[in-house]
């Protein structure tokens, strides 16, 4: 199976950089960006299987990024990452085409399982 390529998007820089390093250790190629504009730029240039997207970010909101990905890059699966109590936003994200959502703090094993499931679902389509 080809190596999975993942883009992590969260305005907490320390979080995405560390997560990217931990995914890389586990054989997943991961890039990290801290805002929606950069995320769309990276997705336009790279071939990502899965985007792990924080919903609450400055500038372009996570939900707007999700909708743009679904419109322009429907081949990319999106996993949302949210805090507690974001039930409505999670529902809205799923309605907009996100594969699933994770609640922070995320366990690395749970994240990898979801990334693999999201990528597999895309391959099946």
């Amino acid at each position, binding site marked *: 199976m080809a190596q999975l390529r993942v883009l992590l998007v969260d305005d*907490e820089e*320390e979080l995405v950089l*560390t997560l990217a*390093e*931990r995914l890389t250790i586990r054989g997943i190629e991961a890039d990290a960006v801290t805002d929606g504009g950069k995320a769309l730029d990276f997705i336009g240039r790279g071939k990502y299987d899965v985007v792990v997207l924080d919903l609450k970010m*400055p500038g372009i909101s996570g939900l707007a990024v999700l909708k743009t990905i679904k419109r322009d890059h429907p081949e990319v699966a999106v996993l949302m990452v949210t*805090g507690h109590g974001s039930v409505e936003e999670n529902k809205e994200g799923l309605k907009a085409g996100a594969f699933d959502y994770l609640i*922070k*703090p995320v366990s690395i094993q749970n994240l990898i399982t979801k990334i693999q499931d999201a990528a597999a679902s895309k391959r099946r389509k």
Partner: protein
Amino acid sequence: MSDLSKELQNPGDGDLAFFGKITASLSHEINNVLSIINELSGLMGDLLEASSRGKALDPEKLALQVEKIAAQILRGERLIKRLNSFSHSVDRPIKTFSLNELLNDIFFLSERFATLKGISLRLSIPDDTLSIENNPFKLQKAVFAILETLFASASTGAIVKLSCSGTAESSEIAVVCESETVTEIFPASSQKEVSDLVEYLGGKTAFSTDDKGCIIKLEISNEIAV
């Protein structure tokens, strides 16, 4: 207890909503801090696990993770201190407090909301402490209502400046918004909401606009008449 004192003690319309909004925002940030510590400690575990399989352990890299965790703990401490201070602002309906500290708190509590909208929030407070007697919770609510309205209507890249000054008799809080969208930046309905709240605290509000944006001034007596 006087009628006004009793009134100031009772939670009014929107008080709980304001309390909820602030505590939700702070707990969201505390959760981010915990998430980062979770990943940094996880990475340390990964490095130790790799070393048990024969990979050389880089002490500098490990020390860097420890340093980053310490920085996040400091950030968490600051957030909890503000959350604690905000929670205690409802302890008594009227008390003597430092207006400087109150503005510092409201600046800290509102900064994330400004950042999310791409707005720069700035604070300027005098060195001398402005001590006033009033209801700190409702005063924070009034200032936050102004900031929230500005964050909703000002354009991305706008600058919102928060400051205070005072005399022996009264203190003034000024909020200046410089934004490209000057018109309708502070709708009339929101002006009434803020004016009513400040009047309730025994103060008065002035709204004005200029070619750069708008200015909102709250004048409050240093001693509330109860």
